[in-house]
């Protein structure tokens, strides 16, 4: 039984969830993968400190479980009995986190360094909120529609006022129902007496 609080003040516990991340394509976690991890951590330490040459031997792993999880500590390249402080390791991991994740085809969630919280992704802030764009389109269409309908109503009224009979509903109704002076007449309206000067202007 492994205690959660291993007495390793300068060590970090790593937890890897291969099947969750990769499903069917999950590779097997074996000693080669552990070696790869050591190499990746050595790279991260080199990248951060830039002066000192870390090697795979400086990354010491222990307490491996089938979860997959294990602890690691980093020793100094000059003096293998001296451990690198936790804070420095954290800085190195944070700096190269993206590269480490990609090396193993994993993500922040499936390759966890317990105690090092992933930085939250900055939200994508578009210049104009998308909803304003949709709103603009809708309100533009509605305004155009209102103006168009109002103008066509106005034109219809003008035409009626000028006495030109509209082709369409009114004339048909007048012909069929024979409405004149508001009194219902039976029969069809005799167009022989309409004013059709507008047709013959000679």
């Amino acid at each position: 039984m492994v205690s959660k609080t291993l007495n390793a003040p300068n060590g970090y516990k790593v937890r890897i969830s291969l099947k969750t991340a990769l499903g069917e394509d999950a590779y097997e976690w074996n000693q080669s993968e552990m070696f790869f991890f050591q190499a990746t951590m050595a790279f991260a330490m080199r990248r951060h400190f830039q002066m000192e040459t870390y090697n795979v031997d400086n990354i010491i792993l222990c307490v491996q479980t089938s979860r997959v999880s294990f602890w690691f500590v980093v020793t100094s390249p000059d003096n293998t009995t001296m451990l690198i402080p936790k804070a420095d390791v954290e800085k190195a991991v944070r700096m190269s986190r993206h590269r480490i994740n990609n090396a193993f085809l994993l993500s922040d969630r499936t390759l966890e360094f317990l105690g090092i919280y992933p930085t939250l992704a900055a939200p994508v802030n578009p210049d104009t909120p998308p909803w304003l764009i949709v709103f603009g389109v809708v309100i533009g269409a509605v305004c155009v529609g209102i103006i168009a309908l109002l103008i066509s109503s106005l034109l219809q009224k003008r035409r009626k006022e000028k006495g030109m009979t509209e082709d369409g509903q009114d004339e048909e109704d007048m012909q069929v129902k024979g409405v004149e002076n508001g009194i219902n007449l039976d029969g069809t309206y005799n167009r022989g007496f309409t004013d059709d000067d507008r047709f013959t202007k000679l």
Partner: protein
Amino acid sequence: MQLCCFLSLSLPRAGLKQGPSEHIDNDHETSLPRPKWNNKAEYLLTCIGFAVGVGNVWRFPYLCQIYGGGAFLIPYLIALVFQGLPLLYLELAIGQRLRMGSIGVWNSISPYLGGVGVASMVVSFCVSLFYNTIVAWVLWYLFNSFQEPLPWSQCPLNHNNTGYVEECVESTPVNYFWYRKTLNITPNMETSGSLQWWMVVSLATAWSIVYICFIRGIETIGKAVYVTATFPYLVLTIFLVRALTLPGAYEGLIYLFTWEILKNPQVWLDAATQIFFSLSVAFGGLISFSSYNNQKNNCEKDAVLVGVINSATSIYASIPIFAILGFKAHTNYVSCLNGNILALTNDFDISDMNITVENYEQWFDSLNGTHPSRVSDLNLKTCDLQTFLDQSASGTGLAFIVFTEAVISMPGSQVWAVLFFIMLFSLGLSSMFGNLEGVLTPLHDLKLVPKWMPNELFTAIICLLLFLMALIFCLGSGNYWLEIFNSYVGSVPFLIIAFFEIIAVAYIYGIGRFSDDLEFMTGHRPNIFWKVCWLVISPLMLFVVLVAYVAVQAQTPPTYAAWNPDYVNFPDTEVLPYPDWVFAICVLLSSVPVISIPLVAIYRLICCMSGRHSKDSLHNDPNPYANEDYVVERARP
């Protein structure tokens, strides 16, 4: 003397059998013919669209869920047949016969009951105010559905990007988006907050769309309803097909088929009120719509059709709603289990994905048997599918919280969100047509419109006035006010108006006269079922429902649920009592619309007794069929 007044004031049977079959129906002030529907389909679609509203989607399924579908449908259908259909038939018939809006119609039937029309107009006005605000909320969500990822799917970061906003973490992203990003709600009603500009913008859009549909009266409405009345059915069918293929749909549908004994008397009250409010009677809108009809139209068939389609739509809408609620419960259950699985896997260092949803129980039992203290230290949540299924919601909670959460888990969330909100928008818009028609047509018939003002301008003024008054719902406390309007205006006044309507037609107008009218219009007299309903059953049911409703309301303390992030039990809502001034407003909202009924009656009585208006009433409310040569002049004492 009073008898004399009554007789001279009530209009004679204006040319029912001996009148001309064709008629002149001119609006006397403009000598324009009364507008009429282009075809029967437009009229039916408009009535169906008015009746079928957002309540069919978010109130009916909720009632089915809490009472059990099978148990609720029985009182619902009984209420439809004995209360809903007679009222519907009555309204369509008198509108079609008397060819006026609600005020004109009730003035014609009996000038003492002219107040019923005024009350209808006032409640339609109040309902238009808050109903279009709901449409504005739907538009806001619709505008926000065109994003990837959906804004209610994740919490936003706080201002120094170190973590998520606390209010969102403690509740859920969906709740946060609704209460904070949409409403920006204040912790209580006393704090009014400020106008939320995005809400004002959405409200302006909603009123503009309503205006453009109303610009030319029923000419443009008739075109618009081809889309707004039919589109919801298309979307419901798409959702039905999609929802039935989702995991967990079957568990959700169980609710529709549960059958409990009708032991709870509350179910009858809820069924009767649901049918009543769902059919949108007593608004005056149906009277207005049928007044544009040809007189020789079979309104009996129309009434039965509209009523049946309305109920069928409710039942049809429940199926995808329940399926999706079942899917949501299933998703919540699986993620609850996955949280437990992860905790167990990490603590016991078990190989990844060895514990699955299927074998969770066995693993849990074996681990609990060997290491009970460690397992209990993990504080695993109890995941029960039934608990998730029992979470019910109605109204805005269903649409904007529960459904939006379900949509996030569906593949292609944006499409489903857009479809859902367009459907809600269509449902709301077609109901708004009826609401606003119940306001505009009486004003036209009362000849309150100056002759120089074109109709388009008058409609614009009314829409602008309603928009400005509805800005109160865009304040921080707007949602609380909307709930008040919904509960106090949108309930008791309608029951009272409908009760007076049916009494007026059945007893004051006379069932005999009404049957003659119906024979003129439909070609046959109404059968015994309708007469018994109008005379006895429907008024009795309405009266009982009214009394029971008021009694139940009087027993529930006047409180409201407030969203207060500083509350001890946040994210639960805090239950606060209404302040006194707010409660006074509630009482006013319930009583002012219906106060016009006795007021107008008393006014007419006073005027009649002083003998001034006895002749003028005939000229004030000209019934085109009132051929004044045939009025019997009673000798005035």
